[in-house]
């Protein structure tokens, strides 16, 4: 299989290849040369092929830290947890490098709540709440009070297709209880479930020009679908840059994504974020070890390299006629207008498997209005309260494998792909109407196609 990958990429003509000429390519190669054929529960956990011995070593080091539970400081190893946090390791939320479980505050929880006040900070980002910051840490070390607890309740709402098929959608309500200090009036919340972390090296390498070419912020072509790039502040480079990561594309680089998660979700400091998440808050007084950062720079970089070098799982059943039919329908009803199937990555001379690859992420990396049903009503840089980044769909058919029970959408409210589709609104409303009007077999074909990703 690996040889095949290499051949395919070497034979392909560089330059302005014709994207529509799909027959010339192996449809299974979602990540180009950075594709793995593992379809086990660890299908999101393979390194990209062709890493050097040294790079593989760094990848494994990063893997180790990604899985490691951190403990309270001072500790001989892996100290620095908290004092308030969301979970104790990366993998606790990103189960098998995939998505997680939409609960909050439990040892296996993958959902957190972003917080802010109306308005924006100096850099155009969300305005932090004094005493809380921009994210709620709902767990704490023994003897420290969490910032607050998150209570999630669901109400089931029936949905009926025109042909009579029914579906139950569960609508979540999030309330914060037991705040350690009063929350101000009018605070904003946004629930976020941990997304999968594979393929991120490829997404980081999609040329900005490609992403910008997808944007149509004023809907000039009048197709009802706009889509805009989020431009966000990068605290490491101290510049405003194109946002790529995070469920609202509020983070510009993998380095910042990884280190912000360490600091905000676990309380682990690094050279990018050298202060504890509670710096300036009352819990700061309980921090015992304030010298240096919790994680050495080399290990921080190794974790960043780990997620950068996780391969994309290959598609299955690509020649199945139902899958092919579903794929055609997916494009026909304009799902593919935002969930863009095909693009090329830029050049990366040190990592050939990522470099100039033809990839199928099924995202345009833009933020779109997803309607009132999914809205968090909390702006995040240019993404307003109804806008979310188009989630990549690669690997979505393997969520059951990697997660046991699969959950979908930004807060895991959808229990299956059909529910996830129906929740789409806003710019997707027209596509969803078309979806509901399709014959049932055609709807199932689209689901079968998604399961092949």
């Amino acid at each position, binding site marked *: 299989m690996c040889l095949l990958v290499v051949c395919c990429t070497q034979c392909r003509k560089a330059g302005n290849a014709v994207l529509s000429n799909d027959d010339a390519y192996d449809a299974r190669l979602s990540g180009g040369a950075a594709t793995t054929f593992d379809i086990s529960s660890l299908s999101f956990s393979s390194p990209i092929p062709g890493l050097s011995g040294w790079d593989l070593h760094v990848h*494994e080091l990063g893997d180790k830290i990604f899985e490691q*539970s951190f403990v309270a*400081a001072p500790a001989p190893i892996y100290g620095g947890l908290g004092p308030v946090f969301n979970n104790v390791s990366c993998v606790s939320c990103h*189960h098998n490098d995939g998505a997680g479980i939409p609960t909050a505050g439990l040892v296996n929880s993958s959902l957190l709540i972003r917080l802010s006040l109306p308005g924006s900070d100096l850099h155009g980002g969300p305005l932090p709440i004094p005493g809380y910051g921009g994210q709620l840490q709902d767990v704490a070390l023994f003897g420290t009070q969490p910032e607050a607890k998150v209570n999630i309740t669901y109400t089931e709402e029936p949905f009926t297709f025109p042909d009579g098929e029914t579906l139950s959608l569960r609508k979540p309500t999030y309330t914060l209880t037991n705040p350690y200090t009063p929350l101000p009036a009018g605070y904003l919340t946004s629930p976020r479930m941990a997304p999968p972390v594979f393929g991120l090296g490829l997404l980081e390498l999609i040329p900005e020009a490609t992403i910008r070419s997808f944007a149509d912020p004023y809907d000039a072509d009048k197709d009802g679908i706009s889509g805009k790039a989020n431009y966000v502040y990068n605290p490491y480079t101290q510049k405003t840059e194109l946002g790529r990561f995070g469920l609202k594309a509020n983070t510009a680089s993998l380095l910042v994504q990884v280190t912000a998660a360490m600091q905000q979700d676990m309380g682990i400091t690094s050279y990018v974020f050298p202060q504890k998440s509670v710096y300036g808050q009352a819990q700061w007084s309980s921090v015992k070890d304030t010298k240096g950062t919790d994680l050495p720079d080399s290990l921080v970089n190794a974790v960043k390299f780990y997620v950068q070098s996780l391969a994309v799982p290959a598609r299955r059943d690509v020649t199945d006629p139902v899958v092919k039919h579903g794929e055609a329908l997916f494009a026909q009803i304009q799902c593919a207008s935002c969930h863009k199937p095909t693009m090329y990555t830029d050049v990366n001379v040190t990592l050939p498997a990522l470099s100039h690859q033809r990839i199928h992420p099924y995202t345009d990396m833009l933020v779109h209005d997803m309607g009132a049903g999914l809205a968090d009503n909390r702006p995040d840089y240019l993404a307003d309260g109804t806008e979310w980044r188009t989630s990549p769909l690669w690997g979505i058919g393997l969520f059951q494998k990697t997660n046991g029970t699969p959950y979908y959408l930004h807060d895991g409210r959808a229990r299956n792909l059909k529910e996830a589709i129906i929740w789409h609104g806003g710019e997707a409303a027209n596509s969803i109407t078309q979806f509901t009007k399709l014959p049932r077999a055609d709807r199932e074909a689209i689901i079968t196609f998604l399961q092949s990703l």
Partner: protein
Amino acid sequence: MKKILILLMGTALSLQACHKASNTTSTEDYTVLEGEVLNDFVQKIALPQYNDLQLKATAFNAAIVQLNANPTDANLTAARQGWRDVRQGWEQCEGFLFGPVEDDNYDPQMDTWPVDNVQLDSLMSSSNPLGIIDIQNLSTLSLRGFHPIEYILWGVHGNSTAASITAREKQYMVSLSADIVNNTTNLNNSWLASGSNFQNDVLNAGKGSTRFKSRQEAFLAIAGAMIDICGEVGDSKMGEPFAAYDSTITESRFSHNSITDFRNNIIGAQNVYLGTYGGASGKSISALVAAKNISLDNQIKAQFTAAINSFNNISTTFEQGIYSQRTQVQNAITALSTLSQTLDAQLLPFIKQYIKD
């Protein structure tokens, strides 16, 4: 965690291409054998081992209750033995770490490492109640499972006595061991037909199983778990303390049970390959391999034996051995690496080539 052997992929392909299939078995018989192997994996490996794990956890909890009621050094010794016994069960079950144990996070719930001394000390010096519910409500898993109990039963320098363990520590261990009983019971139930019935997903692989769309997928999951544990023992559990010359980062450093832990991990994987456990044996992956490629089967069996025997050459604790017996430790790591390379580069392609349903 995934064992990575990219550099060997080319070799794997060429070996695969060169090796001659000795089709001594008809396709029909082979398909029947595949079903029997899956059946025996469930009936003779997974179910009995999870059942034994639950029994050992229950016995361990009883020993801790006894120590709490009557804190003599004899009861401390018995409790330590109970810990080693349940540890043996758990480490062997890690030879097939897929399914509910993975989906429902049983590993972190019982085997989180390292011990969080700071939080443990503040919990012990607090007046926080220590009932099982209170333990389960603790915010971090590093305060639950095998290793906090190990820390208390042995002490940092292995010099705990029945008298030196405080009343709160004993109460804490009673609840921690009851929590392990809970977890092992739930894990066992998750495979039982009367419970979540995960066995059904394995037995019906390729025949309606939602988890395994083909038998090949099920066999790849089983083999993948074997490879992962071999890689984890060699590269992480042994390799990291060895490379760092650091005995404080070994797995069971208070009890000095690390080598036994490692050996049991590999025995667990060997049980799966040979289809044997607790004196019973059944149709095995070994038989599937032998039917098509007897030399590969012999090679895997020999490498399992070599890896398990290599631990015997380390005549001191692992914590000492990484300083004083580096050759022997290195040899064990090498034996594990050889084994996992063979499984990765030859067993996985074998499954992809011959298990087609």
